[in-house]
């Protein structure tokens, strides 16, 4: 016993998107299914795997389809499934990991970016080793301000699909190691500030560091949607807009 609950607890502790399906009525009351996304992706989107049992294969198939939909919508839902002897009442309890924006570089743009991200429900973490930038005064509105080398700070975090990483320092020494580290993890978004020229130089450095072209292509650079803005606030808005676009596309396609 308790094996399924252990798996549920583990998934939640690891901040993994998952759903727990429970039968609320009828003779299968208390039946449970844990639905998770599988790491391997088939063509046409990720696959979903269920553990546990509802005591009926057809019901499990139907529940899995509904669970997948609820997970993609990131919403806990109650459903009724019609069966021969009436209806099955099910709760599809979706556990959504907390979305987190990691901002490498406590620069001017980071100040409005923290504000926008907070407004959209993201936890914000600002990382910068330079004490002159990383001051509590400037980042009192951030959930966390870490004064250390970005790469070291990233190593201490769980980086998953609900983590979005942006590098804003304009300093290769700080940005590049952070990018290399983030690219090695399944983070939901990676963006790097800098012009096309800066990025071309960065790509060369990353290649030299052994990062594959496929990995490098995950970097959004130049960062942000093209809103034509130049002020820190406008650039922050462009970055946030791009993150929202990427995150919503994930919801649409399940990717």
């Amino acid at each position, binding site marked *: 016993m308790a094996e*399924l609950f252990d798996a549920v607890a583990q998934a939640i502790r690891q901040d993994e998107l998952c759903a727990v399906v429970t039968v609320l009525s009828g003779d299968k009351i208390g039946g449970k299914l844990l639905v998770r996304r599988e790491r391997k992706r088939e063509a046409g989107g990720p696959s979903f795997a269920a553990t546990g049992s509802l005591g009926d294969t057809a019901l499990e198939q139907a529940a899995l389809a509904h669970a997948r939909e609820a997970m993609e919508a990131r919403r806990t839902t109650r459903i009724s499934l019609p069966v021969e002897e009436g209806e099955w009442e099910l709760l599809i309890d979706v556990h959504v990991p907390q979305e987190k924006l990691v901002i490498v570089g406590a620069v001017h743009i980071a100040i409005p970016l923290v504000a926008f991200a907070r407004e959209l429900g993201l936890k914000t973490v600002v990382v910068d080793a330079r004490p002159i930038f990383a001051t509590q005064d400037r980042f009192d509105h951030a959930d966390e301000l870490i004064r250390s080398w970005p790469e070291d700070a990233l190593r201490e975090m769980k980086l998953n699909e609900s983590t979005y990483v942006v590098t804003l320092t304009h300093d290769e020494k700080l940005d590049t190691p952070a990018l290399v580290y983030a690219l090695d993890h399944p983070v939901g978004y990676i963006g790097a500030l800098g012009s096309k020229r800066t990025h071309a130089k960065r790509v060369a450095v990353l290649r030299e560091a052994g990062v594959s072209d496929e990995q490098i292509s995950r970097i959004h650079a130049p960062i942000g949607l093209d809103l034509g803005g130049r002020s820190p606030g406008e650039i922050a808005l462009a970055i946030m807009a791009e993150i929202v676009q990427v995150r919503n596309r994930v919801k649409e396609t399940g990717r």
Partner: protein
Amino acid sequence: MKEILADIDSWQQTGKQVALATVVQVYGSAPRPLGAKLAVSEDGAMVGSVSGGCVESATVQEALEVLSTGRPRLVSFGIADETAWEVGLACGGTIEVFIEPLNW
């Protein structure tokens, strides 16, 4: 859910039975959303919430019965009947709570 895991763990490690209550339906305005959870140990300790305070003690009573029978149950709380005033939701909403033994 995350916030109640540590307590559930420590109860289970000391060999205590645990029941889990989950909000499975919300009518009107209720203080806690669908999926909100309260865990109850066999000695009546609780962690988490299903309503923000008003129906917690009634839920604990139900949870202890669920632990003694071993059968899950679906319970409705609200202002629909006379006695509900005592356990009723201050906001006037109605909630349905599924209570199950944590033995899966």
